[in-house]
């Protein structure tokens, strides 16, 4: 999946999980500072990323390694090169 497609899907996913408008979910948007994500949101983000992209990512992965939306995209793209862990379809 290309980066643009990953970002497009992440925009929808983050807006739904974080209860924010899609237009706020730009690549440079900071998850905590701009989108007001809390620890429960990170747990939900991890589960949603796994569902949509088929990549296992827990709350700690997202919290420790992703500051911005673009960072999640990087994790997804990196996960894709190592292969999906979970066989689920969005």
């Amino acid at each position, binding site marked *: 999946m290309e980066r643009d497609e990953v970002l497009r899907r992440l925009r929808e996913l983050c807006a739904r999980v974080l209860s924010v408008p899609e237009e706020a979910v730009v690549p440079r948007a900071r998850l905590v500072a701009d989108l007001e994500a809390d620890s429960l949101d990170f747990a*939900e983000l991890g589960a*949603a990323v796994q569902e949509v992209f088929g990549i296992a990512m827990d709350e700690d992965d997202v919290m420790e390694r992703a500051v911005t939306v673009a960072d999640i995209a990087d994790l997804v793209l990196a996960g894709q090169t190592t292969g999906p862990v979970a066989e*689920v379809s969005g």
Partner: protein
Amino acid sequence: MRAARVGAARVVITGMGVRTAAGDTPGALWAALAESRPAAGPLRSFDAAGFPVDVACEITGFDPAGYLTPKQAARADRSAQLAFCAAADAIEDAGGLAAEPGRRAVVTGSAHGGLLTLEHALLRQVDGVGRPRALYTPMVMTNAGAALISMVYGIGGPSLTLSTACASGGHAVGEGAQLVRAGSADVVVAGGHDAPLTPTNMVAMYRLGALATGFADPARSSRPFDAGRKGFVMAEGAAFVVLESLESARARGARIHAELIGYGRNSDAYHLTAPHPAGAGALACMAAALADAGVTAREVVHVNAHGTGTELNDLAEARAVAELFGPGEVPVTASKSVTGHAIGGAGAIEAVIAAMSVASGLAPPTANLTELDPRCELDVVTGAPRKLPAGPVLSNSFAFGGHNVCLALAPVEDAAL
């Protein structure tokens, strides 16, 4: 005159809020009842083509915006959202919670918890494993409503949830009153809620033979005590009251809707889904509420029946009422003819209706009663609201599992001070 309970605080209702298919305020609900306008309509909560049940009491256009932030709402099942909105209205109606956080309590009743969230996750299963979101468990838990109410309103005292199927809401109000009586809390938000309109739950209740279906006009489907009844109509809904001591309400000049003078609860200890055929449990439960209130059956002016519209309930309840009060001796109303059966919410919805009967001196009519089942020796109010003398009103709830509750409400009687 009522015998005073030595040492225990007298408990009054100072706030009420509802979310029902028949109205989203107590006033709107009362208007629907007074005009016998059933909320039952064609089932629309999900694609019902080919579905064996064709009717439900659905709350259309419900939106928790203005009560919950988008994030709070996204983290709450519809059942907890309904609970929160009804509780918020009750608290506003009471003029806020007049006690410090540690002296505030909340008691909720729910049969199903977050059933929509649960079913959504399970129906999307892959290889036998559901696909839950991370917040699945705290959204499905039956205490989710109590948790949400306690967090937003700073309720630092007891927050409890009980689950007694169709009696949950009545038990929540009764046990909430017990907290005030026992001095465990000064103000209690108490009520019940459920959002049970899911395909699996409705099919299950249909297979059990409990649901009405197949009427040409869906609005005619809920017919408690009528010879043509076929079962109950499933509803979603919530109702909450604010309870406090009479002393507290008087001291702050609060409006009092009704006094909760008695609380009876017991068990049939008989059958998983059927009431005792002679209504033995129901009779003992009403008697317990009267004994707790210190009043006699002769003083009771009205009974808001459990009145589901299933033959098993209606016959057993009618026998119990006729035995306790005498055949046709007390005016009876079955509000579920208008509201449908909101399961864990029902007892609390009917407690609010009973409180409005106390406050207005009126028994609302039972809708859809065209031919009283001759086996029900009852004076069922029909047509128009009936004037009542001032006096105790009972509200019954009898559940699957044989869990019974009866609340006794009355106008505040100064002479008993």
